[in-house]
C-alpha cells in the first residue's frame, strides 16, 4: 500500500503560483516521471511530496494517509538529490546508515540492511570511502543506497543524473531501472530530460507552467500527445510545426502548407477534421521521421514533394535535413545514402498517417 495521491495541490510563493492545482494518482510499485522545462513546478511538486515544501492548498496522501502536516522524516520516503547531498565528512557506510542510526535501529540490523543495499548497487568495496574519493557514478549509487537502506514507501528522485556526463547518464539510467525492478518501490522521478523520462517511466507526467499537460505511458505521449506542448516537448529532434489551413477541394479534405504545397488528409481523419475547415491558427505537426527520402514502394497517405535543402547534418545511421516551408523551418530524417546536399533541391516524402492537427490558439491537438 504505497500509492501516492495528489488532490488539487497548490504551491504559492508570495503571490506567484508555482504549482496551480495538480491531481495525480500514483499506484503502488509504479515508476512515475515528472518531466517539463525548468520552472514548470515539477521539482516543487516532488519537494511537496517529500515534505520539504509546505503545500499552500490541496492534499497529498502517501499509502492512503494524508501527510500534509507530517514532517519529512515521518512520511517514510527517501530522496535522491541532484547533487547527491552525501555528507562529506562521513564515509559511505555512515552516509547510508545515518538515517537508521537516528531512528535508533539496532546495530546488527543497520549492518544487515547496509550490506544488502550495497550488494544490490555493487558498492560493497566502497563502504569505507569518503564521498570525495568517489567518482560521479559511484556517488550516484551511494545516494541511491542511502535511499534503499531506509526501505521507504516511496523513492523520490530529483534530477539525479543531470550532474553526470552523457555516457555515464545512460549507464546509470539503466542502473536505476534495474534497481527499481529489484526493489519494486513506488518511485517519483523528476527530470527535464525527455529521453530519461521516456526510457524510465511506467507513466510520464508532462508538466508546464505549474499544471499537468498530460499523463500517460511513454508511447502514448509520443504517438498521441493531446497538447502542442507535449507534442513539441517529447521527441528529439522535436516535432515540426508548420502553419497550415484545411480546405475542402472536390470532396476531399486537404491540408495546405503553402501556395504550392498541400497534402490530402488521411481518410480516417476526415470526419474528425471537417469541422475545422477554414479555421485560422491551425498548425500541422509532423515528426522528423515522417519526412524521409522518396522510396520505390508507396504506402497509403505518403506523399512526395520537392524542396530545396538548407542544411544537412549527417548523424551516422541517419541524416537530418533542414528546409523551409512557407517561412517555417522543417526537419526531416533521411537515409545517409539518399544524397542530400545543402542548397540543392531534394525529393522528399511526407507520411501523413502520423500527422497531428493542432489549434495554435488553444494549444490542443485536434
Amino acid at each position, binding site marked *: 500500500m504505497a500509492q501516492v495521491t495528489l488532490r488539487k495541490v497548490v504551491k504559492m510563493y508570495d503571490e506567484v503560483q508555482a504549482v496551480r492545482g495538480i491531481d495525480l494518482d500514483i499506484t503502488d510499485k509504479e515508476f512515475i516521471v515528472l518531466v517539463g522545462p525548468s520552472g514548470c513546478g515539477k521539482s516543487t511538486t516532488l519537494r511537496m511530496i517529500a515534505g*520539504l515544501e509546505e503545500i499552500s492548498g490541496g492534499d497529498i496522501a502517501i499509502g492512503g494517509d494524508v501527510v500534509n502536516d507530517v*514532517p519529512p522524516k515521518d512520511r517514510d520516503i527517501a530522496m535522491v538529490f541532484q547533487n547527491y*547531498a552525501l*555528507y562529506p*565528512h562521513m564515509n559511505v557506510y555512515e552516509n547510508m546508515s*545515518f538515517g537508521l542510526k537516528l531512528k535508533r535501529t539496532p546495530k546488527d540490523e543497520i549492518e544487515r540492511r547496509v550490506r544488502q543495499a550495497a550488494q544490490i548497487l555493487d558498492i560493497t568495496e566502497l563502504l569505507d570511502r569518503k564521498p570525495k574519493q568517489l567518482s560521479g557514478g559511484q556517488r550516484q549509487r551511494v545516494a541511491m543506497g542511502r535511499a534503499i537502506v531506509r526501505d521507504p514507501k516511496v523513492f523520490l528522485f530529483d534530477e539525479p543524473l543531470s550532474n553526470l556526463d552523457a555516457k555515464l547518464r545512460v549507464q546509470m539510467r539503466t542502473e536505476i531501472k534495474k534497481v527499481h525492478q529489484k526493489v519494486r518501490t513506488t518511485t517519483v522521478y523528476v527530470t527535464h530530460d525527455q529521453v530519461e523520462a521516456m526510457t524510465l517511466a511506467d507513466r510520464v507526467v508532462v508538466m508546464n507552467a505549474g499544471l499537468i499537460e498530460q499523463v500517460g505511458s511513454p508511447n502514448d505521449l509520443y504517438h498521441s500527445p493531446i497538447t502542442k506542448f507535449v507534442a513539441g516537448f517529447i521527441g528529439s529532434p522535436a516535432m515540426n510545426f508548420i502553419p497550415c489551413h484545411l480546405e475542402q477541394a472536390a470532396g476531399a479534405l486537404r491540408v495546405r502548407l503553402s501556395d504550392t504545397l498541400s497534402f490530402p488528409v488521411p481518410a480516417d481523419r476526415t470526419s474528425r477534421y471537417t469541422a475545422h475547415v477554414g479555421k485560422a491558427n491551425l498548425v500541422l505537426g509532423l515528426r522528423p521521421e515522417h519526412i524521409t527520402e522518396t522510396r520505390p514502394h508507396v504506402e497509403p497517405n505518403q506523399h512526395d514533394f520537392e524542396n530545396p535543402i538548407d542544411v544537412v547534418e549527417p548523424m551516422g545511421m541517419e541524416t537530418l535535413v533542414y528546409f523551409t516551408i512557407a517561412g517555417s523551418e522543417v526537419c526531416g530524417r533521411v537515409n545517409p545514402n539518399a544524397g542530400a546536399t545543402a542548397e540543392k533541391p531534394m525529393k522528399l516524402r511526407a507520411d501523413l498517417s502520423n500527422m497531428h492537427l493542432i489549434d495554435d490558439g488553444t494549444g490542443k491537438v485536434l
Partner: protein
Amino acid sequence: MANATIASPTATTISGRRYGSVSRDRRWALRWSYFFLVLFAIFFLTPPVYMFITSLKTSAEISAESNPWWVYSPTLANYIELLTQNTYLTFFRNSAIVAVLTVIITMAISVIAAFALARMKFWGSATLATGVFLTYLVPETLLFIPLFKMFAWFNETFDIQLMNHWWTLIILYPTLTVPFCTWIMIGYFASIPKELDEAALIDGATWIQTLTKIFIPVALPGIIAATIFCFTVAWAQFLYPLAFTTSTTELVLPVGIVTTLIKGDVFNWGQIMTGALLGAAPPLIIYAFLMDYYIAGLTAGATKG
C-alpha cells in the same frame, strides 16, 4: 604570402628567437621579483629578528657601543629570569585563560547564532545579520569609555566590582570577536548546499542534530579559522586591559610587558624584548602550523557573505 613565410626556414628561426625573448623576459621578471621580495622580507622581518637578537644580550652588551645587530656573547639569562619570575608567569597565565575562555564563549555564541541566521530564518533575521556585520565595524576605541562608566555604575548599583579583574576581560572580549566570527560562520554555513540539510531532515535529524552532526563537521575549516581569529584577537587586545585592569596580578601579557617592564626611564630592553617575543610566540606558533586556516579566516571577512 602566409604560406610562403611559414615554409621558409627563416620564419622558423624568427619564431624561435621570439620565443626565446619571451622566456628571457620571464626570467628577468622572476629575478626582479625575487630581488624585491628579499627587500620586503628584510623590511617585514627586521623588527622580530631584532627582538630575538636583543633578547640574547646582556644589559652590558645592550648599552655598549658595539654593533647592535650582532650578539657577541649570547645568553639565555633574559629568558630564564622572565620564566622564573612570578609576575611574568602571571601575565602569561592570565592571557592564556582569558584567550581560551573567550574562544569557547565566542564560538558557542557565534556558531549557534550563525546556524540560526543562515539556515532557520526568523522574523528580522536578515536585519540581524546586517547588524552583526555593522557591529564588527564598530571599533573598541569608541566603546571603552562608556563601558568604563557602565562598569563603574554596575559597581555602585550591585556592589560587584568588575573593574581591575582579569576575568572582566572575558566579558569584554566577545564584543570584539563574536560579530566577526558570526559573520564568517554565516558565510561558511551559507556555502553548504541546501540539499545537505534537507537530506538530514528526511533522515530524521532535528535542527540540533543537523547542526552538530552535519554542519559543524562540514564547516570545520571555517570553525578552525574563526577560532584562530578569535584567539589572536583575544591574545593581542591592548586597549581594554589597559583601561580596565591595573593591579600587577590582574594584567595580561601585552599590558603587563608595557607597564611593568618599562619602569620609568629605566628600560631593560633585553627583558622587554624577551617578554614581547615570548608574548608573540603563541600566535606565531599557531600561525606556523595552521597558516592556511589563518589566511582563510583573514580573507573570509571581505570575500564571504
